[in-house]
């Protein structure tokens, strides 16, 4: 492991990798990847052959998958709050929430937004989007219920899973979903709580994000 380089497209899931890096306090470089033409810069393909962002080069270690990047940084920077240390309470629950958010809520958003999953068939795309919106709503409802008596996803403490939820419920992700994510009071309060973290403030400045959500 060595120098950290984040391959980034502003405003995408790179925001959560950026926030996680900011949480560690470690220095890192950012390389902008072309939003449309992911062959630029050329070395990006070596870091992530799927050409999806975020991707992180950590010396010789090539990381992609947002949840995996959070876990990797948590293990690498044990003073950070990203994941409880091995053998301590909340460690496995952090795995659970990161995996659930990435393979259920995040993939539903992918079906909503990104056409890679869908062949060139507008009718099919529309029907898939409708099903995705239904799934996003159900997932947001479930998480809102979980937060009914909790400040953070994992009992009693902030983790990197909260960063992922913060992104997936943020206005620029859930803009077109009805009802809006923040019609759910617990999600709105959670978002405001995570939004107030200095690392998240730095991420928003870097990515030019300026939303505010009333708790």
């Amino acid at each position: 492991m060595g120098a950290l380089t984040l391959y980034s497209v502003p405003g995408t899931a790179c925001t959560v990798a950026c926030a996680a890096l900011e949480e560690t306090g470690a220095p890192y470089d950012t390389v902008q990847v072309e939003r449309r033409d992911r062959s630029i810069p050329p070395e990006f393909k070596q870091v992530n052959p799927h050409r999806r962002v975020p991707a992180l080069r950590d010396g010789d270690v090539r990381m992609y998958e947002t949840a995996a990047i959070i876990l990797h940084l948590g293990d690498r920077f044990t003073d950070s709050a990203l994941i409880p240390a091995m053998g301590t309470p909340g460690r496995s629950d952090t795995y659970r929430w990161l995996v659930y958010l990435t393979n259920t809520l995040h993939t539903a958003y992918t079906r909503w937004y990104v056409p890679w999953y869908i062949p060139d068939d507008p009718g099919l795309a529309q029907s898939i989007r409708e099903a995705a919106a239904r799934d996003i709503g159900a997932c947001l409802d479930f998480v809102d219920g979980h937060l009914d008596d909790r400040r953070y996803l994992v009992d009693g403490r902030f983790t990197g899973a909260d960063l992922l939820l913060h992104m997936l419920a943020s206005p620029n992700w859930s803009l077109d979903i009805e009802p809006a994510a923040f019609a759910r009071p617990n999600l709105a309060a959670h978002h405001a709580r995570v939004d107030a973290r200095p690392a998240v403030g730095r991420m928003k400045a870097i990515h030019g994000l300026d939303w505010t959500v009333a708790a």
Partner: protein
Amino acid sequence: MITLYGYPGSASLAPHILLEEAAVGHTFVRPTRDGPDAGPPEFLAASPHRRVPAMIDGDVTLTEAAAICMHIADRNPEALLGPPPDDPERGVWYRWLVYLSNTAQPALYQYIYPERYVMDPHLVEAAKHAADVTLGAIWDWIDTELAGRDFLVGNRFSAADAYLWMLGRWSRHQASPAFARPGIRAFWDRIANRASVLRVIEQEELAWVP
């Protein structure tokens, strides 16, 4: 005592293999998901969506197959089911488990349950075809990743291999299943012949193993 809730061949398969690898005492419970007989109550409390797998390990209750795999690896370091947290390969191990869980697995769900992915019943076959195409690209890529190597991470068996083996089995109804490719096929046989996997095949009475 660890209780793993699952069904034969379902997403509980990888965690079940890892419990056998670690040789820790466990019970495999097949819950009743629907109707008035739904239960047992411990399962309903552990898994609000009634999805499997769920696991109760002392004071830890978990869902999500990949998270359960990571947990079993952490709790049984001597079984070497994943690189330790200070190992450079640890991140690669996370990367594979997350990739399989959020890319290959949802595509398989869309292939197996296409009716859940479209609102218009006339488009179910089209959704299934879209998933088939997506899966083909995923298996092709994994096949190239396995070229010249025996396992996904480092040079030894890990939880990521159990996960890929489980997902490969789910692809069996595709016209070109994962293991139709030479790299995945060799990998498949290597994993299928592990003592832990053979025990799970017997315990879950898995009829279909190519």
